[in-house]
């Protein structure tokens, strides 16, 4: 069985062309990044605002909990039946799939941004204000950089979830690595299904590692404890 999966993956023909692995990989990443960017644009400012002002804290707690309980596939069908009649062309399929992924990605990013800002040492914030920083300066110079580790962790876990879940786009006939799963199941081509699953897992791990490297380079050593040469 494992040999058949390896054989399927090793087949050069499966990697090329409009329905090849490379093409599906690119599609998959397109779906995932688009959803992630949209989710980040919504969740980061909202999380920072809530963390900074302390207003709407209950929203984070409840929304995050509730959103985690939503079944993705159920939401996909719901969104499709609601949106598809109102849209036309490929967008009628892309929008529902995108919506599901965005909804999935918001909670971890939101709670990361919120917890990051809320966790800033009160003395540091007090000093910042007391030295004459205005609200946006406190945010830019103190709260945001101090919250960065948690914000990035939130994005990272959202990224993992979105990459894993972007397979459901194939349910609506769209592309991405989910195609191999759906098509494999439909044609009872087990090696293809298994290969699709493996590819998704490998992609998720690779992206996660890349993200860890980014995180290491943008977060201040003062927060991570990686002081490098200048240590005591």
């Amino acid at each position, binding site marked *: 069985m494992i040999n058949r999966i390896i054989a399927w993956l090793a087949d050069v023909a499966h990697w090329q062309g409009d329905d090849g692995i490379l093409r599906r990989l690119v599609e998959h990443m397109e779906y995932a990044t688009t959803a992630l960017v949209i989710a980040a644009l919504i969740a980061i400012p909202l999380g920072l605002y809530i963390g900074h002002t302390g207003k709407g804290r209950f929203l984070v707690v409840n929304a995050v909990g509730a959103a985690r309980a939503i079944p993705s596939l159920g939401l996909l069908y719901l969104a499709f039946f609601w949106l598809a009649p109102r849209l036309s062309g490929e967008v009628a399929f892309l929008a529902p799939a995108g919506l599901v992924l965005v909804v999935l990605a918001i909670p971890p990013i939101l709670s990361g941004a919120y917890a990051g800002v809320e966790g800033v*040492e009160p*003395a*540091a*914030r*007090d*000093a*910042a*204000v*007391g*030295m*004459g*920083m*205005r609200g946006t*300066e406190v945010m830019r*110079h*103190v709260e945001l*950089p*101090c919250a*960065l580790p948690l914000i990035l962790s939130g994005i990272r876990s959202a990224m993992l979830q979105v990459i894993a879940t972007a397979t459901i786009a194939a349910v609506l006939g769209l592309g991405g690595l989910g195609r191999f799963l759906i098509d494999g199941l439909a044609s009872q081509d087990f090696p293809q299904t298994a290969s699709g699953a493996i590819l998704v897992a490998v992609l998720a791990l690779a992206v996660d590692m890349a993200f860890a490297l980014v995180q290491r380079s943008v977060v*201040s*050593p*003062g*927060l991570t*404890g990686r*002081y490098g040469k*200048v*240590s*005591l």
Partner: protein
Amino acid sequence: MIRFDAVSKQFPDGTKAVDELTLEAPTGKITVLVGPSGCGKTTSLRMINRMITPTDGRIWIDDQDTAEMDEAQLRRGIGYVIQHAGLFPHRTIVANIATVPMLLGWGRRKAESRALELLERVGLPASYAKRYPAQLSGGQQQRVGVARALAADPPIMLMDEPFSAVDPIVREQLQDEFLRLQGDLGKTIVFVTHDIEEAIKLGDQIAVLRGSGNLAQLSDPAQLLAHPVDDFVADFVGKDRGYRALSFQQSPQFPLSRESSVPLGATPEQAAAAARDGWVLVLDADRRPLGWIEPDRITAPVRSEMLARGGTVATAGGPLRNALDAALSSPSRRGVIVDDQGALLGTVRAYEVLAEIEERARPELDEADLERAGLRPVEETPE
């Protein structure tokens, strides 16, 4: 000069943190706000830079009503030091110190060279510049906090229990260096503490607050110790007031007894020849006292670890308290008096110091103090 004009603060839940406080912090002096917890001292301090908005009354800085100034501008002109330093963990030490200059738009190069200058000024090596706050001890962080507050050379400093989170030995070092720094800089400082010892040591003027920002007494330290206005203040100032008040009286030229001495390495015979009443003082090469020794008890040449080191040393012309303590703590009963370089001048006995103390008049009650605190002169009640 900072002036509180009938300032009150009532919080939304109805508690009155400060009630009609009127107070003046003179230019170039350290004014200490001291009192038990919940007395409104921190609230009062934080109203100066408008971290807290008064519900009533006005606070003036020279001739300017702080309520009419731009908040951020006001704060950039006031140094602010808080209990846990509040350093920015993601920034290096030099970047932390350069915060306000950067906010004022000095430019990176100028701000950083100023920051390095201050790092040295507060007694930290330049090699710390590129470290992060988490790499420093609490005392070192607090020094950085002071440097950061001084960076833009503000005429006013607000300090909220800056030394209370460090251990007693470090605290004393920080206090001494703070006084030395203030001697050079002459800032107008408002300093909050709950520690009356610290208040007495640092304050040019001490405001004792009781519950809800009520000014109980406003005096210089010597007055506070000699004339607490009521039981509350007397209680708060604590015991040993008579002894502590000696810190504020200069020693006269005592008639010092000549003290013969021996260097380290002297033989028991040499030490015995120099001894008086069984004890002899041991000096180093610069004639600085190292300790006392009893020649009768030694059989080998004098070594450092044989010395009795319990005695303190007082500088000539220093506070009477130090002279008395030198006499009281000396194993030979002879208090060691040294010059400014620490070299031996002679010794003085406790009764000689006491005779001097008894001749001194107690500091007069300054009635203006009572008026400033809004009190009529009261008969002192014995404790």
